[in-house]
């Protein structure tokens, strides 16, 4: 168990010395997962509003499916995307397998159900009175939707934070569609997996601590946003 303590020390050493390889994979992890989270938010906030505000046959079923996909294994997303992006697959011509773009797409797909479901859930939490008041004051559909979204912003931001968390912590998808190629698609989580299987437990632990530290920094920033 001394590996945990040694890992903590090693983490500080790596951060303090600005170890170039660690900086590289940390930066890559952040930009890949950050981009995925951004893309998923751009898709899911409008889409979630649409789903919440409209009544259509099968709405209950759709929400069920979305919530079921919360549990989709990351390796499964990776595998399905691999079959799609492989040269022998339908989108092979794009040549994006084993590149960071593939990981971004994979993580976006992975967290979309989560963000969708939680957005719908967040909007449901807003009192119906607000909608009725807005309508009685002559607000258009779009204006009402924007109003409710702002009322629910705390819960919606929590959903975004959760989406980012799921993206930056996942290994399975990044490993399969990224290939953990040094200098190209190696990110913190795939590096942890590799170092562990090499028996480099302290380094693996240090990388894990660094990832948590990054998540902490991001959370503090997003929390500030939440309070406003």
């Amino acid at each position: 168990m001394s590996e945990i303590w040694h890992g903590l020390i090693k983490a500080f050493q790596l951060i303090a010395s600005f170890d170039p390889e660690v900086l590289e994979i940390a930066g890559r992890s952040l930009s890949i997962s950050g981009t995925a989270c951004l893309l998923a938010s751009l898709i899911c906030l409008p889409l979630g509003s649409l789903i919440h505000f409209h009544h259509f046959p099968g709405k209950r079923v759709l929400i069920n499916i979305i919530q079921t996909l919360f549990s989709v294994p990351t390796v499964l997303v990776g595998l399905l995307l691999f079959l799609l992006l492989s040269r022998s697959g339908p989108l092979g011509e794009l040549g994006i397998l084993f590149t960071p773009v593939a990981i971004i797409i994979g993580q976006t797909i992975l967290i979309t159900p989560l963000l969708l479901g939680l957005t719908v859930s967040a909007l449901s939490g807003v009192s119906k009175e607000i909608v009725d008041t807005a309508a009685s004051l002559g607000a258009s559909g779009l204006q009402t939707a924007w109003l409710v979204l702002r009322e629910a912003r705390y819960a919606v931001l929590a959903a975004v934070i959760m989406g980012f968390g799921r993206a930056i912590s996942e290994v399975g998808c990044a490993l399969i569609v990224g290939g953990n190629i040094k200098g190209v698609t190696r990110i913190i989580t795939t590096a942890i997996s590799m170092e562990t299987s090499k028996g480099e437990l302290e380094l693996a632990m240090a990388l894990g601590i660094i990832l948590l530290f990054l998540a902490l920094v991001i959370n503090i920033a997003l929390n500030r946003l939440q309070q406003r």
Partner: protein
Amino acid sequence: MPVIVAAAAIAGFTVTADAPSLRVATTSSLYDTGLWQYLEPMFEEKFGVKLDLVCAGTGVALEYGKRGDVDAVVIHDSAKEEQFVAEGYGVERVPFAYNYFLVVGPQDDPASIKGLSPEDAFRKLMEQGEKNPQQVRFVSRGDESGTHAKEKSIWQAAGCNYEAIRKAYWYNEGGSGMGATLLMANEMNAYTLTDRGTFLAYRTKLRLVPLVEEGQMLLNVYSVIAVSPCKHPHTRVEIANDLISFLTSPEVQRLIAEYGVNDYGTPLFAPCAGAGPH
């Protein structure tokens, strides 16, 4: 504003590097020894290309090759390699290095296999494993790698029924790379089949010792195969051929022969470019 940031980030990722790159799927037992980390910068500098290495078991490496997702494969399963070339996926099988497999196990050797031939040793492991599964255990790669294929062929040569063994209590299929498998066997105080290179590279982390080191069946030949442009016209076959000529060149063959002497006192590989098919 967020849309612009997203677009910029994606653009940043899709901007291709100036140097062309060669994507190679390599077997884990070559990667874990650090040989690639040693040769990679030399190759990149000499030919002005980026070498992208995907570390995978022989099984999935060949799959990547068949699908055209990599430009070359470097593996060690002669039967699968020959089939790969025969089916038109690969240009030519070019062996460039070899070493030997070893059967390693706990120091006290509860199954008493030390010094036996590989086939006799495996037969004894099966017998002793059946009798005493708490003491005598075996960890297999279980991942369709070259090492796994060799292991299966030894079981067959020993006259053992592999399917029956897979279900046995004393037999554990790890489904991992060579390094991870060695660490698992170490934890379980079990026997396993490993290539000499990875075993030496991991020596300091293991309490396991080599028990069976001699036997024709233990020959382990690494080959490099360029993925054929006939099946996949986009593959960078010229750069793949550069890699092949690099690995078989006299200077690199000499470097391979000396690799590991400083750290382990003995070379991890022997060069064999130009030797006939094994």
